[in-house]
Structures are given as structure tokens and as C-alpha cells.
């Protein structure tokens, strides 16, 4: 028999142990839960008016509205009548539409309906994240308790139970076909993502620590679970301004003193790029979007889906610095090539690769030209390869030839298009921007975007265009004893796309603000970047911007339907430490 005292003592020890184990668990979970509770806090308002397929609602950022927020447009359904007293207790609200906030203004916001707009009327009530179906996909196998907390925190969502959701979840996160209103919460070992019915990232949170105690090894179950390949949005840890003083005055760090927010709040992170990227190029094939990326040494090719799936790798067979990449597909049904420009042996080398299984096989290397590819027929396939001679003083020389692959060998031909003297085959494109049936020549050089019609200059931008980490310092004449280094920057090519669906192409290009270091040519010195739009309107070119300013250079750009894809690369320090790249997207037609 045991005496009561030892039992009591053991029980106390057990309780203390449990408390000590659970305390950090609870705190860590609470931090994430609290963030989610903040972001999904109920809000109610009304539809003010319809406007060109969009709706204006009477809520703004001051009320806590964020771009991407989902509002249920509710309508009163059946009345709830007391069976004995006959008193109307309320009514069952029905969701007749879902609105997604696309931009905010002081006092109101614009939203667009998801799926087909129902009969939304002025004065309709809207409620944030109310009565919408919700799923919880757990890719850690340890998230059941977290789900319980989540469900308790967000009772206004219509949750599917844990087991059912787990049973039906895909092997890796991917959009749900025909999803009109279901929000998906995805728990991976990198944190919690919340994706809207279109599978765009709404929020990202850190991982609830209690899922994986630091000392704990991954369970067998976890090892066998497919891991989510979608990388989280880049995170920055910033003390909330209101809380900073607390850190100084109170030794205990409040659970609310640190908040995690996506660095680029308006952009959706598709994936983190392995290593980093100084230049990327995209090509849309029939059922595939390929991205080629280089860190300056090697080349990686990815299939861009909801994440990046590695396809192939390669590099020139000789050492050098890879400066630029361009996809090239001379014929629609022919093979796909990748043109890479590298710097080796104090001169420029062009290299042509073809995809050969999981490797990039060289077709021809050491072509002494700077290579760029272009879509001249407007079918979005870069069928034309131009090669520009190297000039020691200016890098981009005056001789430009069209390169064609004949019997496995590159041959040079006189280009069929008329080019301005300062044209560069990198950071450039051809497109009919004025709608006159003729191609305009667009190129960025010396931080200026130029638009030419043949040799006539139509437009010259302010000095803020381009800005690239692909940067080279080289000696003008390597044979000279008295060296004369200079530098060249290799710009991301602008993109021509009908961004506003008016049937006319606009130019979308990278722009940046550079610091003095850039001016003195010690490096690109890019302080912030953004996307600039140049449009031909009423007989002249006008300029605007797309999206937010970013504090890192943009190293790739593409418009894929209604998505603008771009690569952001944090340059890191002088040793390269801290460099990282992410593929992000803006949705044009929210």
C-alpha cells in the first residue's frame, strides 16, 4: 500500500513537470494563434456600390482591412422562430457571394467577387471570414492539437474535421479544383500558410514550436509524410512599434513583442529559389512554365507550378561568370534552347544549351558574342537569337548579327530589323506598343528605358530603370599594363503584355533607386526596386508603376496570364552571406 503523502508528492511533481513542459508549448502556440486571431478578427460592413465589376465596401485599413481579405456577402435566410413563444430569435444568414479586397483607400476599399458574382447589391452586409468553409492540411502529423486551437479561435469558419481533411489532402499542397470559397490552412515544418480559394497566399506564420520540441527527433510518421515543397514567404522579425518600449522596460518579453510579417505583403511567394539568383528567364510552353536561373556560376532550370520543381542543371564547361540567360525556341515544334552569356578569359562568351534530361547539354560554347533572344512575331515564343559584339569600352559593341542554328552549328546572318546605335541585346525587347502594326524597339541602357521606332527615338524614361545584381567589373584592355577597369550591368529584359486588358501592349520593366556606390561603379548599389509600366496612350508614352517598392533587386520578370512573376534577390553582404532569392507573384486581375 502507498501512503497518501508520497502519492501527493508524485502527483505534484508530475503536475509541475507537465506545466513546465506545456508552458512554452502554450506560449509558442498562443503567439501564432494570436496572430491568426488578429488577422481573422471579425469585421462587418456593407457594400457601398458596384463599380465596373468591382464593389466598394465601407471598410478601410484603419478598420484592419488588408489586401486579400475575404468578405462574405450575407443575406438573411430563414427566420429562427421560437416554437412556443413565436418570438423571432434571429435569422439564418446565407452567403451569396465572397468578395476579395484588392486595394484600399481611406474610408473604403475595392473588392472583387470570387467566382461568378451573385446578386450583390448596395447595402448588402459583409462579414470578414464569416461562414466560409475551411480546411486544415497537416503535413507534420503533429498538428491536431493546433487545429483544435485554431478551430476554437476561428469559430466563424465552417471547419471540416481534422481526420476528413487529412484524408483528402493532396500529397503536397496544391489548389483545389473548382474551389469557390474554401480557405485552406496548411501546416508544414516551416510554419502555417493560409491560402484563399484561388490558392494565393493570404498569410504566413511561424511554426507553432510545440509541434516539434527542439530535442525531439522527427517521428517515423513525419518522415514518411510528404513534405510541403512550397517555401514560406521570406520573414523579417520586427518588434511591433507599440511594443518596443516594453522590451526596454520589462525584462520579460511579452508574447506580443515580436510579430512576423511577410516582407512583401502584396506579393505572393511562390517559392524560395535554391541558393540565389542573379538572373532568371522564363518561357511558357504549352503546359509548362519554365524558369532558368543562375547564381553566376551554374544554371538551374525549374518547372514553375505552385512551387519550383527542379528540372535540369548545367554550366559552361569552362570557368567564368554567367551574366545572363535567355530562352530560345527557333521553331514552334522544335527543341528548346537556353542561351547563356558568360565572362571568361577577359572576354564575352555566348553558350547555347539544350535540355537533355536532367542536364543542360552544350550545343555550342565560346561564341564570342553577347546573346539575346526575342519574340518578333508576337506569339510569346522567343524565336530570334541576336548576337552582339563585345566592345571593351562600352561592353555592348556595335556589331549585331542574327544567329541561326544550321546543322548543329551557329551561323551568322545580317539581322532583318533596323536597330538603333545604342541597342543592347540584353535588357531589351521588340513589341508593337503603338498599335501601328510595326515593332518598337525597347531597351534599357544606363538606367534609361528607350523606345525606338526603327532608328527614331519615341521615348526616353527618367533615369531610374533597370538595376541588376548581374554586374561585371572588367578591364577595358587586359593586355595593358596600366589597367583601366570599368563596369557593366546586365538588365532584366522588360516584358510586353496587355496588363489592363485594353487590347494594347504595355511595357513592364524593373526600376530601381541606386545609392552612391552604384554611381561609382563599385557595385550595383540598389537601394530599392519596383516594377514600372510604360504605356502608349493618346499619342504619347506615359508611365506608371505596379505593386510595391521592394528593398532588394529584381532579377527576373514575366507576365503569365494575369500573374506577374518576378524574382527578388537579397544581395547579402560583400562576402555574399545572406543572399537569397524568392519567386513572387502579383495577381493582376484580383
Amino acid at each position, binding site marked *: 500500500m502507498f501512503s497518501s503523502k508520497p502519492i501527493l508528492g508524485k502527483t505534484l511533481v508530475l503536475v509541475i513537470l507537465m506545466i513546465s513542459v506545456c508552458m512554452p508549448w502554450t506560449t509558442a502556440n498562443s503567439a501564432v494563434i494570436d496572430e491568426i486571431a488578429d488577422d481573422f478578427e471579425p469585421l462587418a460592413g456593407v457594400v457601398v456600390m458596384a463599380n*465596373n*465589376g*468591382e464593389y466598394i465596401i465601407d471598410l478601410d485599413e484603419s478598420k484592419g482591412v488588408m*489586401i486579400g481579405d475575404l468578405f462574405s456577402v450575407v443575406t438573411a435566410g430563414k427566420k429562427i422562430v421560437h416554437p412556443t413563444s413565436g418570438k423571432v430569435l434571429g435569422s439564418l444568414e446565407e452567403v451569396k457571394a465572397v468578395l476579395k479586397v*484588392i*486595394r484600399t483607400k481611406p474610408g473604403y476599399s475595392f473588392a472583387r467577387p470570387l467566382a461568378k458574382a451573385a446578386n450583390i447589391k448596395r447595402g448588402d452586409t459583409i462579414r470578414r471570414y464569416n461562414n466560409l468553409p475551411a480546411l486544415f492540411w497537416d503535413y507534420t502529423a503533429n498538428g491536431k492539437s493546433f487545429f483544435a486551437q485554431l478551430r476554437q479561435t476561428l469559430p466563424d469558419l465552417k471547419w471540416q474535421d481534422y481526420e476528413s481533411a487529412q484524408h483528402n489532402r493532396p500529397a503536397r499542397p496544391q489548389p483545389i479544383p473548382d474551389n469557390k470559397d474554401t480557405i485552406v490552412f496548411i501546416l508544414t515544418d516551416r510554419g502555417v500558410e493560409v491560402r484563399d480559394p484561388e490558392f494565393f497566399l493570404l498569410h504566413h506564420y511561424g511554426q507553432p514550436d510545440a509541434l516539434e520540441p527542439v530535442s525531439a527527433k522527427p517521428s517515423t510518421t513525419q518522415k514518411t509524410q510528404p513534405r510541403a515543397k512550397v517555401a514560406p514567404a521570406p520573414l523579417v522579425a520586427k518588434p511591433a512599434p507599440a511594443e518596443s518600449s516594453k522590451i526596454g522596460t520589462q525584462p520579460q518579453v511579452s508574447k506580443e513583442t515580436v510579430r512576423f510579417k511577410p516582407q512583401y505583403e*502584396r506579393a505572393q511567394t511562390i517559392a524560395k529559389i535554391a541558393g540565389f539568383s542573379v538572373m532568371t528567364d522564363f518561357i511558357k510552353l504549352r503546359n509548362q512554365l519554365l524558369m532558368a536561373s543562375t547564381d553566376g556560376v551554374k544554371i538551374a532550370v525549374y518547372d514553375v507550378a505552385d512551387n519550383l520543381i527542379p528540372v535540369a542543371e548545367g554550366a559552361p564547361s*569552362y*570557368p567564368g*561568370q554567367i551574366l545572363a540567360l535567355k530562352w530560345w525556341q527557333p521553331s514552334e515544334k522544335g527543341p528548346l534552347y537556353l542561351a547563356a552569356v558568360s565572362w571568361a578569359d577577359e572576354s564575352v562568351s555566348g553558350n547555347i544549351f539544350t535540355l537533355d534530361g536532367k542536364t543542360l547539354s552544350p550545343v555550342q560554347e*565560346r561564341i*564570342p*558574342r553577347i546573346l539575346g533572344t526575342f519574340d518578333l512575331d508576337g506569339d510569346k515564343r522567343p524565336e530570334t537569337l541576336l*548576337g552582339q*559584339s563585345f566592345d571593351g569600352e*562600352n561592353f555592348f559593341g*556595335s*556589331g*549585331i548579327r542574327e544567329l541561326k542554328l544550321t546543322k548543329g552549328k551557329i551561323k*551568322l546572318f545580317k539581322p532583318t530589323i533596323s536597330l538603333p*546605335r545604342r541597342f543592347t541585346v540584353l535588357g531589351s525587347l521588340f513589341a508593337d506598343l503603338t498599335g501601328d502594326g510595326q515593332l518598337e524597339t525597347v531597351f534599357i541602357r*544606363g538606367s534609361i528605358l528607350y523606345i525606338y521606332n526603327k*532608328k527614331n*527615338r519615341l521615348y*526616353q524614361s*527618367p533615369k531610374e530603370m533597370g538595376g541588376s545584381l548581374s554586374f561585371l567589373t572588367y578591364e*577595358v*584592355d587586359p*593586355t*595593358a*599594363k*596600366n*589597367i*583601366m*577597369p*570599368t*563596369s557593366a550591368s546586365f538588365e532584366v529584359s522588360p516584358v510586353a503584355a496587355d*496588363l*489592363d*486588358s485594353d487590347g494594347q501592349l504595355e511595357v513592364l520593366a524593373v526600376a530601381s533607386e541606386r545609392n552612391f556606390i552604384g554611381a*561609382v*561603379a*563599385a*557595385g550595383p548599389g540598389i537601394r530599392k526596386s519596383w516594377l514600372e*509600366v510604360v504605356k502608349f*496612350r493618346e499619342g*504619347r*508614352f*506615359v*508611365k*506608371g*508603376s*505596379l*505593386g510595391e517598392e521592394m528593398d532588394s533587386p529584381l532579377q527576373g520578370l514575366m507576365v503569365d496570364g*494575369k500573374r506577374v512573376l518576378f524574382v527578388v534577390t537579397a544581395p547579402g553582404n560583400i*562576402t555574399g552571406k545572406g543572399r537569397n532569392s524568392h519567386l513572387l507573384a502579383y*495577381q*493582376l*486581375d*484580383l
Partner: protein
Amino acid sequence: MKKLGLTIAILAMMGFAVPAMAANFAFHGDMNNRILVYSNHVDWLDARNDSFGVINDDTVSDSYAELKYRYWTEISDDDNNIKGVYAIEIGGIRWGREGSGKSQGGSFGGDGANVETRWAYLDFQVPFIERKARARMGLQPFKANSYFWQETATALHFSSIITDSVDYELAFVRSVDKFNDIADNANDDIENVDSFYGRVNFKPADDLKIGLFGLYMWGDPDNNDPADFGEIDSRDYEIKQFADEANLGVFTLGVDGSASFGNFFVNWDLMYQGGDIDDVDFFDAIPGTLRNSKNNVVPDVPAASGDFDLSAYFLHADIGYKMGKAKFTYTFWYASGDDDPNDDNFDAYLAVDVDREDSMTIFEGPFVDDVTYFTERPYMLDKGFVMNKLAFDYQWTQNLTVGTAAMYMLTAEDFEYVDGNGNNQSEDEIGVEINGFLKYKLYKNLEFALNAGYLFAGDGMDFFEQGTSRDGSSDEDIFVSSARVRFKF
């Protein structure tokens, strides 16, 4: 119209081109810290002394550190139609050396006057020409051929293209100016030294480039009285050393170019020189004697005087193969030499102003290149040169490159001299040099480099030995090693 999503805001900010005269400013630099790690014969490398490079018996070792920094600014318009360049050079400033001027100003206080203008020129696109047509005037880097003339010069240089595969250059260079210098003599001839240079480059294919060039240099110091003759010391056998003292009319015609075939590559240079070098005394100098006859040179009687006909040639070829990270290069050159210092012909090839780095122990291979070399020219004295060099370069990693080379060197004509024992000697073998280098990028633009070379001296080097060791056979090998830490941007 369908609205753009997110935050596209078309702002009617820029309808028309902004003025084209916005200025671009660029600042470049080369901050070069150099160290002579060690040499066992700094007497040989100290060729800028009045007595030139000599080889004393036994070791004469030393080491030093210096800095040489260059900075330059470029200001241009947005279209790069006009560009102005100004460059300064600081130093070299040798650590611990007091005084002002070249290699000085590194002692206590470090306040030596050691800044010079390196470049100052204007470069512009000739108006009304759509194709490239650049004119450059001022103190500028000038290159006719890297074995002939490649240095800073005051010039008017024009370059343009005829077709995509043909371009050309024209230049006028003034090397010596004696404007209205009538106090010097009673004649009224123009006494400047000027050159006309022309070149046409043909590029029929990307992997083939052929250049044809010619340069005519003339000048007349009006010293046709034998008492006023200029002087050419065989150790100063380079046009820049005597251009202001000789009545010159010298032309150089050349063909150079390069080609590649897959991984093979070839470079070549071929030059012929002719013309007259008049009104000079030629001294077949003896190593260890002073530079100038007026400074008691021995011998004090010129080997020949008066007017000389120049007829010389130079040929060079590199043949190489690139294999992944490795590159093999075989280099051969032949610079003609003069076989008779007493006749009225100059048969030795003449460079104008160059810096050759091909050898560590003979040329400017050491990174400390201001004062520590025997010669900057691709030949020795007026004896010409024969170079056979096999080099292997290997880029180990993205940041590390190593290389080694072996070379067998001779003069084209023998050194003919009387040795310390009174015997006549005739030797041409300079010897075999083995050298190597390592270059490592500490950061992207910051390089650490180390090199070293050892000359297994041939008997021709006995010509430069001093005292009793000058006996017809070489007694002293030469070793030199240098390093640098260089930031360029």
C-alpha cells in the same frame, strides 16, 4: 475599360523625352598595394638606376612594399555622345622612403608630392554620323600594338566602322613639343616629335580578326652639328628614350590578329620597321657604366655616329588550347638584333613605349613594376630577343587561379665583350626561367596575388656580371618573388 488589379497606376508623368544632356558620373579606381617579397639580385632588377641592371658576385637581396593608386572619373551624357575622363595616379609610394616624387613620400609624415595626371581626355561621337565614329583627344591610353606602343600619350584619336566586319582607327600623337624653342638653335624647323597612326581591322568571322597598321614617326631636333648629336645608349634602345635627340623618320608596318578554332587559339604580330635615325651617336654600352657620355660613360667614344638606316622586324605568335579550367599557351617571339654596333645600320627592333610582363626576371613580371625590372621592352639592349615560353594556367575555383610557365630565352644577336680576364666572349643564352603565380579573390573585386620566378642563368647573362665573375660563364641565378593586394572598381 477593365481595371488593372492591385496597384497599377498609370501616371501621366513622362510623355516626351527628357533633355538628353543629363550627366552620368562614374568613378573608378585601382588601389594596388605591391610587395617585393624577396629577390637575391635587386642589383639586376634596379634597371632605372644610372648604371642600369648589373649582376654582382653573390647575393644582393632586398624587399620592400609600395602602393600605387589610380582613380579616375568619367562624366558623360545619357547617350554617351560626350565623355570626359580625368585620372590621377598616386605613387608609387614606397613604405618608409622619404622625399617627393616617384616611389617616395612614404616616410614619417608621408607628405611627398607624388600625384600625377594619368589621363585627361575628351571622347565624343562625331555629330551627324549614325554609326560609331568616336573622336578622342587629350592625354589618353594609346595602343598601336602591345609589342610596339602601348602607353599613355597625348593624341587625337579617331575610330569608326566601315561595315560590321571592318573598322578603322586614325591617330595623331605628339610625343615631344618644342614650341618656338629658338633659344635652342638658330634653325626654324619644327622640332616636335609627332606620329601618324592608322589601322584597319578586318573581322570576316567571329573567330578571326586581322589588323593592318602603320605608324610614321618623325622629328628633328636641329642638331645636325656633330657636336650636338643626340645619344643612343644601347641600354636605352627604345624610341621614347631618344626621340627628342634624334632626327627621326621611322615607319613601322604591321599585321596582327587572332583566330580560334574550337578550343584552339592563335594570336600573332608581325612588324617591319624602316626609315632613318640621324644625327646621333650610338654607344655600345658596358653594363655598370653610367648612362650618358656627358656623365663619363665608358667607353666615351661612340661605336658609330651620324645617320643610321633602320631596318628591323619583330614577329610573335601564341598558340594555345583551352581545356575546361586549364589553358596551355606556347609563345614565341623574335625581335631582330643588331650584329654590328659600328656600322651605320640599326638592325635591332625598336619599341616606342611598352610594358612587357612575360618574364619575372627579365621583364616587368614582378607586381612591383615601377622600378624593379631589367627592361620593359620585348628585347634586351640592341641585341633583340628570342622567347620560347610554355605556360599553363588553371582556374582552380571561381576565386583561385594558379599558373606556371617555363621559358627559354636568348638574344637574337650575341653579346660580344671582353671579359674580366681579357678574353673575348660571345654569348646569347639568357637562360631558362621557371615561374608561377597564384591569384585569389578575397572579395569580388579585391585580389591577393603572389608570383615568383627563378632564372637558371645562361652564359649570356655573364655580360652583365661585374668584376672577376665576368668570365664567360654565368655565375648567378636570379630569383624574384612579389605579391599584391589590389582593389579595382
